């Protein structure tokens, strides 16, 4: 199976929850009018698997594909302060941490980020990846035929 065959920015359509209000917007857009709450979700979409991998500069993404026989999917929803201003340095990257969701065969893969915007997961804690897609594929490579745990990550 071609692991990249189903991956594209459009691939999520019709598969699982479809988010209709897809805003084509820059990663740094911060102001969402008319939201009452402190945070406004903005679903971002990327160019899909065909894009060159740029380490440290993750593209907003949405993907679905079969990879090594596993179904992997992911979305990045950026939570931005409504009307908020980005602050300098680390604070800026914190303000822009996307609410990401990655699943392998339907099970959640907990994803974290580094200061350069790259991603780590509970499966790969000592190496980061430029995209959610690369993070999901690396997790599949590492776990072999196992399934992800259904337990909540980082619970004490």
């Amino acid at each position, binding site marked *: 199976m071609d692991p990249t065959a189903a991956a594209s920015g459009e691939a999520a359509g019709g598969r699982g929850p479809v988010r209709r209000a897809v805003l084509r917007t820059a990663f740094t857009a911060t102001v969402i009018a008319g939201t009452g709450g402190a945070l406004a979700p903005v679903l971002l979409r990327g160019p899909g698997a065909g894009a060159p991998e740029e380490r440290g500069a993750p593209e907003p993404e949405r993907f679905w594909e079969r990879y090594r026989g596993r179904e992997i999917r992911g979305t990045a929803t950026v939570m931005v302060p409504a009307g908020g201003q980005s602050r300098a340095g*680390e604070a800026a990257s914190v303000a822009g941490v996307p609410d990401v969701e990655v699943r392998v065969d339907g099970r959640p893969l907990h994803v974290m980020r580094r*200061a350069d915007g790259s991603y780590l*997961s*509970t499966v790969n*804690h*000592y190496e980061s990846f430029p995209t959610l897609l690369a993070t999901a594929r690396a997790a599949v*490579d590492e776990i072999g035929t*196992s399934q992800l*745990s259904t337990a909540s990550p*980082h619970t004490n």
Partner: protein
Amino acid sequence: MYSRKDQRNLTRTEKKRLVDAILELKRSGRYDEFVTMHRQYYVTDAEGRPRAAHMSPSFFPWHRRYLLEFEEALQAVDPTVSIPYWDWTRDNTPAASLWAEDFLGGNGRSGDRQVMTGPFAYRQGNWRVSGGATDGRFLTRNFGRPSAPVDLPTAADVDRAMGDPVYDAAPWNSLSTTGFRNRIEGWGISGTRRVANHNQVHLWIGGSMAGAGSPDDPVFWLHHAYMDLLWARWQSAHPRSGYQPGSRLPDDDPQRDHVFAGDAPLPPWDETPSQLLDHTGVYEYV
């Protein structure tokens, strides 16, 4: 005062006593508390909160204190044991005695990566992992990660890190391109360098060691004892180089509230990096 030995020099009896003490901590539930603790202190440098254990100058002192607590727990079971170190520049193949049936067991099998040999194999009935990312309760390894091959670091890799006379440097996180700390901790940096040393060894072993439950694999302790030895060796090589940052970073430094200066108490022990700089008097490496 006790000795931490090179694992390659342990006698058969020493290996057995260490394995038995580890299994007893597992049986009592104490072992899994250490695994949980390591997960709790895994904070990344995008999170905007204090980082004691990783991506941070206190990588070395935090893990020194963590190993001391584990060693204390081991010694409460058997006062004769200590944590050996694994010099992976030397014992750098799957055939090393470290991975033999009488010590840590070997590589995981293909498919589910399950370790099938040695005292920590699931089928022996004494080792159910708690902190892993997968739903299997067995220890996993994936030596060399065939899907994207990775080697163990070499003596030359370690020597390059040891040659840096500065302990750590701005931005005091996983993106520090200079300084002994991140050269050994080994975060890959886009356009600059690949995963190295400490992190690279976690990748090479793979499975449990690559993920959130890395202390689920007992080799974790032997790997970190070697990191601790390298820190001591670096201090000896650069006697005028102190822990950095020595005091709290200035108001305008974005890392001010996120990293631990030499005089900042490290959780959960409330001991400062400065108090953890010197291990002599507690243990020695032989």
